[in-house]
């Protein structure tokens, strides 16, 4: 009898292009990006790191609501988004606000989403994305549907959805991959394995040695990527996208990454389940540090340039918060009017009631 489970993970060796010291270790896989594009990637990562720091501060001041910190995951988030075109459709999880912003969601709307203001979820025309999903894994079956819709309409575009390691334990994760596989729909499933589902380490979530190997059961392509290496994430996503639009089916991308901060700002204290040693080990892999070294080696980046990005980010964040503050307050009548295309009679009654109250 042949045993199959041993060494499955050996097929899923981590794909890396630049190492922790910023050196190219896989020249063959180097994506064909111009100097400007390389700098743009760095720009976005620095900007997003500042946005994360400011968002945490704003949350502590009571000026933002729900917030899931992103520091540590910039390469996974932004490297994958950078491989997309405008027509591609993003179905994010709740930590994936940066991808939405770089896909076209104005910053002030991202802040409104955090505050639970409906305008934060009103995607501008031409921004192909859903709002961040809160139910773990629910976006994954929907991604299969979006991809199917694109295929039916003959669009050369993909649906890309994000979840964490925790999301891979949901039935929806398998169902979504299996569906997309059965229809060879152009979907990309990105699993940002940041090692913890809130407090439960990935080793306690599954007996699988890698999360990428979960693609095998669905019969789709799976790859494990160094999620701290922005070029590796970019290259893997670009490849998945091309295969998707060429009718070669969906891909599961597992990115190995780490969130430096708490799960969310709603009272999580990671010191209860993570050690300093582990934090230090991952901080050495930091995506910004290694990419900065890589760019400096090519003479493409300097402290001056970095400071310019930081200043720009701070200015824009300030302006966006101001704009968010200026948004009209939500009214009960607004909320009622968004329930159905046409108001049913019971809501018409409620509408009249609140119109009167709001007019006073």
């Amino acid at each position, binding site marked *: 009898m042949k045993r199959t489970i041993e060494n499955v993970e050996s097929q899923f060796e981590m794909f890396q292009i630049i190492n922790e010291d910023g050196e190219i270790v896989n020249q063959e896989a180097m994506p064909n990006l111009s100097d400007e594009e390389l700098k743009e990637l760095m720009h976005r990562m620095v900007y997003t790191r500042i946005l994360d720091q400011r968002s945490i501060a704003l949350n502590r001041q009571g000026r933002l609501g729900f917030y899931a910190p992103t520091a540590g995951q910039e390469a996974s988030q932004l490297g994958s988004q950078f491989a997309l075109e405008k027509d591609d*459709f993003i179905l994010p999880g709740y930590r994936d606000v940066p991808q939405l912003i770089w896909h076209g969601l104005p910053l002030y709307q991202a802040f409104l989403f955090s505050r639970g203001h409906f305008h934060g979820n*009103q*995607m501008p025309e031409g921004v192909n994305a859903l709002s961040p999903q809160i139910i773990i894994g629910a976006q994954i079956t929907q991604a299969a549907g979006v991809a199917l*819709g*694109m295929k039916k309409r003959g669009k050369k575009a993909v649906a890309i959805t994000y979840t964490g390691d925790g999301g891979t334990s949901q039935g929806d994760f398998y*169902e979504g991959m299996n*569906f997309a596989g059965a229809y060879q729909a152009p979907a990309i499933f990105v699993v940002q394995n940041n090692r913890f589902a809130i407090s439960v380490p990935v080793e306690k979530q599954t007996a699988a040695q890698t999360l990428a190997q979960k693609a095998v059961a669905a019969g789709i392509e799976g790859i494990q990527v160094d999620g701290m290496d922005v070029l590796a994430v970019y290259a893997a996503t670009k490849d998945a996208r091309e295969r998707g639009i060429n009718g070669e089916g969906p891909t599961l991308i597992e990115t190995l990454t780490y969130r430096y901060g708490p799960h969310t700002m709603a009272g999580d204290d990671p010191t209860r389940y993570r050690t300093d040693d582990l934090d230090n080990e991952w901080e050495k892999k930091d995506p910004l540090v290694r990419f900065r070294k890589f760019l400096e080696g090519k003479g493409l980046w300097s402290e001056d340039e970095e400071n310019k990005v930081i200043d720009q980010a701070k200015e824009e964040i300030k302006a966006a918060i101001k704009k968010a503050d200026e948004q009209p307050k939500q009214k009960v009548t607004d909320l009622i009017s*968004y*329930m159905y*295309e046409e108001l049913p009679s019971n809501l018409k009654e409620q509408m009249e009631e609140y119109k009167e109250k709001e007019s006073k």
Partner: protein
Amino acid sequence: MREITYLEAVREAMSQEMRENKDVFILGEDIGVYGGAFGVTRGMIEEFGPERVRNTPISESAIAGTAIGAALTGMRPILELQFSDFITISMDQIVNQAAKLRYMYGGKGKVPMVLRTPAGSGTGAAAQHSQSLEAWMTHIPGLKVVQPSTAYDVKGLLKAAMDDDNPVIFYEHKLLYKTKGDVPEEQYSIPLGKADIKREGTDVTIVATAIMVHKALEAAAELDKEGISIEVVDPRTLVPLDTDTIVESVKKTSRLVVVHEAVKRGGYGGEIASAIAESDAFDYLDAPIKRVGGKAVPIPYNPELEKAAVPQVPDIIEAVKETLNKRITTHA
């Protein structure tokens, strides 16, 4: 007019719409050459092909999630769940996703999908394939819930459901599939939220849903022989509910019996009774409102016990008579 079955009316409504609108497609288990668990989609894959009559894996959560994803990108999916009991498996997608997206997106997203599914007992399908769980769906703001009782209604209501930009849960009753009625050949729409008076009468109002409409009509015919005049009101859609028609009927008859196959406790009959208690019609009541519903048991496999678990014509007749014999007395 031409007579066809309820089942044929469902199929015709879908086929005509699919010829008109390329964005409409069906997905579900075994809906291709097999024709669906009850044969509703038989012949459709031959006309529309496997991309528009899409067989799915046994994966209810993904069927619903995929329909939502497709709907969000402008398609108009119809999903068929083989048995309405399986809504339980797709519950997150229906309740937390489809029902809420329009609201959460500030009106800038819509989920125009129809979830068609056969419900009810009477086929010997036992505890996990025979339930009437529609009250759950009526509790969720953002959904519309339809329960057609005749071939004519099912065609017109399905057209309205397919045209609707909100998610619609469309319950077809298994035992009604073979019932026949006059159905126009052309497309027509019956607005969601419009009740239908299936029989006019003056002594007692019976509000009945789905197959219970027919049992109520049988009971009314029996009672007519005894000189008791029954008005039978079929709400047709539970959400939105046409409260006005029910209120007007009760004002006329002053007596109300509510009948559904679903378990009485927590059933939609409670909502109808409450709507009357809150309305002008309350003052007109000459007797307490009577609810007739299924027993609080799983549906048995044994055919005799299966019948005993849900209301039958004699139960309705008895309830009407109790209502007529009871009077609301004013205590001094």
